[in-house]
């Protein structure tokens, strides 16, 4: 790579290609805490938790909410495959809050393991949206 100050970033969801282009830095929620990536990172494969993501493109930090998925990192190239990705302005705060309340309500009730995981996942998605919106 001639240009070492950026890497090629792709954020792809089943619904759309969220971002494709050069980026200078990236911070995303990994399984065991936030993970930062600069150009020239060692090759890593890791999983992504629902949460807030930030990437720096053209000197500007862009926040976004992402769902669970995984990331493949190479020195000059990062690909994120996630369940959803949204810009803060696309997030409907009321809807996310309602979803959070609903998930919390469900978690309080007796339910099967499967349902418990579903509710937890729904809660995590709602929290991720709210966090990015703030």
């Amino acid at each position, binding site marked *: 790579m001639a240009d070492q100050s950026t890497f090629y970033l792709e954020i792809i969801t089943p*619904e759309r290609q969220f971002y494709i282009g050069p980026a200078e830095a990236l911070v995303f929620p990994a399984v065991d805490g936030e993970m930062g990536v600069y150009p020239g990172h060692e*090759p*890593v*494969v890791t999983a992504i938790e629902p949460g807030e993501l930030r990437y720096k493109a053209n000197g500007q930090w862009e926040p976004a909410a992402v769902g669970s998925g995984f990331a493949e990192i190479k020195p000059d190239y990062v690909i994120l495959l996630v369940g959803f990705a949204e810009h803060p302005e696309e997030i409907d705060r009321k809807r996310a809050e309602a979803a959070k309340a609903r998930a919390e309500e469900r978690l309080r009730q007796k339910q099967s393991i499967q349902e418990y995981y579903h509710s937890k996942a729904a809660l995590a998605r709602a929290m991720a949206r709210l966090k990015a919106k703030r």
Partner: protein
Amino acid sequence: MASIKEIRTHIKSVEQTLKITNAMYLISSSNLRKARKQLNDVEPYFQKIETTISDILHHSPEIDHRFFDKRPEIPAEKRKVGYIVVTGDKGLAGAYNHNILKLAEHKLEKTPNASLFVVGQVGRSYFQEHGIPIDVEFLYTAQDPNIGRARDMSELMVELFLKESLDEVYILFTKMVNSFRMEPTVHKLLPLDPDVFPVCEDHSPYHQHVTYVPSVKAVMDRLVPGYVKGDIFGALVESYCSEQNARMTAMKSSSDNARAMLQNLNLSYNRARQAAITQEITEVVGGAQASM
């Protein structure tokens, strides 16, 4: 020659059918446009997830993980194989349903210990009619595929696989090669097999040592269900698109046929009417001449 009345009823019935086929053609073409858009949106994800997984698999050969366990100790005739068969909810879509069901039957012949998970009403009623047992709890429609449905299906498959209720899971769906060619396809979902993924051609030096954060197991535990979900979703979207396309083509050709038929019928109707008029005139003239 058929009587005028007969021809007229025939024309009416053909007109009715034409109305229906034409309406179905319009509906499926608008559905197809929507499905195409969805397919275009999901395709990059589908392809990327495939290449990324294949990348990972080819560059980390010694992954010892439950999703990669092929269970070689189980002999071929005892292996429990799950097939997800994606059919349409309705018929009248040309050979679409027929082709995928034929493929499913072919697969069933080869595997004695198969369980069927059928998406779509046509497939369900077909297997019920033929007395082939299917999973009755697995009730999903083929209409408007969404990611939530794909998630439910993949969760079920992963669970059955891990419980060893199934040793292999395949999905049978119709791939849309282009708008004129649709191919019923089999795709292996679980266990992950590096051999079925195409070897990617690039040999950049980085690939040799890939680190898994925090560990191979933790990453694979998340990555594989995500992959299965993405794969199922892609298959559902692809099938839905193929179904609409097949229906559109079928309805277009039947509308065209109906129009050609109407033309012929109108011709013979007019001919019969003309013959009747001519005959009447002849009779009148004949009667007038006789009375003169």
